[in-house]
């Protein structure tokens, strides 16, 4: 027990401000999938129309790939990494090892967001939480409708931080990093990243 030094990880590792890339907005809500009422559903939207977006991803090499992994992989392959303009993520239920019903649920999440943004094959889906339980789609659907219906999208620091919170499971702090970079040509650009994970962590993605 002598190594137990309590440190305030939230204070140490969670930023208090940040600047974010142009043309992105994020939305979030507590859908009720998480039993404690915490944020558990997030959407990232590309709002830039000046040119088509591009997308890339790496996925688990676990033989039992969750429904959102298989579904997102298919979307990305069909779209050839172009015109992906939304990502919808839920926490609290991983929609993994859920068979055909789980595949349908992942597709419904995608279809709901595609409908909202008026585009086909434009959304990726991710889920995290308990394995082997079916998603409560009534709550997820209501949550997606709420995020879009109440225009909960924002591009400010708190919106980004809340999306980072909405994907957490056993995490003790949201993981949000944002940085500006300058290229030799003088072009400045921004990278913003979010991650979640605290257990079941030894990824080998490809």
């Amino acid at each position: 027990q002598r190594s137990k030094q309590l440190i305030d990880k939230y204070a140490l590792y969670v930023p208090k401000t940040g600047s974010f890339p142009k043309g992105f907005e994020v939305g979030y809500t507590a859908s009720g999938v998480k039993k404690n009422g915490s944020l558990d559903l997030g959407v990232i939207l590309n709002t830039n129309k000046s040119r088509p977006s591009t997308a890339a991803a790496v996925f688990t090499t676990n033989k039992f790939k969750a429904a959102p992994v298989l579904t997102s992989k298919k979307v990305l392959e069909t779209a050839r990494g172009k015109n992906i303009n939304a990502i919808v993520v839920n926490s609290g239920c991983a929609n993994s090892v859920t068979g055909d019903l789980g595949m349908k649920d992942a597709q419904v999440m995608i279809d709901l967001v595609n409908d909202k943004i008026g585009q086909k094959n434009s959304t990726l889906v991710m889920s995290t939480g308990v394995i082997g339980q079916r998603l409560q789609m009534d709550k997820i659907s209501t949550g997606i409708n709420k995020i879009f219906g109440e225009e909960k999208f924002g591009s400010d620091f708190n919106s980004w931080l809340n999306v980072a919170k909405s994907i957490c499971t056993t995490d003790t702090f949201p993981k949000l990093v944002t940085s500006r970079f300058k290229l030799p040509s003088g072009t400045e650009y921004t990278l913003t990243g979010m991650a979640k994970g605290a257990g079941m962590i030894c990824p080998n993605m490809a």
Partner: protein
Amino acid sequence: TLLGFIVTDLPIESKALQKMLTFATTRSFNCISVDGDMSTNDTICMLANGAIDTKEINEDSKDFEQVKLQVTEFAQRLAQLVVRDGEGSTKFVTVNVKNALHFEDAKIIAESISNSMLVKTALYGQDANWGRILCAIGYAKLNDLKSLDVNKINVSFIATDNSEPRELKLVANGVPQLEIDETRASEILALNDLEVSVDLGTGDQAAQFWTCDLSHEYVTINGDYRS
């Protein structure tokens, strides 16, 4: 489960974007371990919307390599936060394997140390039980056995604060240091951040892995996760 997104306003051609993300992941998210378990849902996604008015970057662009390295460094920062939040963890440990014959074997050794429950529990207990590190190196499933020469290996604990001596040698050129300075070892192991350095002396390739200690709290959290 690991989930992550990286978004940018830079215009990047889709094939180039996938190459960047794959390169970055191999050196960041695929180099972390909390408990050695791979999820069914691990996903990292990257979106580039091109909101900045500049020429699209492809694999032939002069900026490609620089952006790739910036994305990699950025991904490492994000990946390290996951390890810092490892369930029940109290320590953040960098495992540096250098001078290996092959990059892949350096990574395999770093991963073997990072996943060893006995190494991780010793780190939690601040016990300089370096024999467990050697053990984990020894059973690593190397692609090329020539990557590991037990007569050339050097293993050290490295302090990450400014205290001296920074390096505490545990094995020097294959010779175990049986009378290590236990006081200094305890000082280094009491740090929240520390480093395990492995110099294989068989080549010039290097790999890094980031891991954490394993505590009682990990069992408490995972004994009733579903409820």
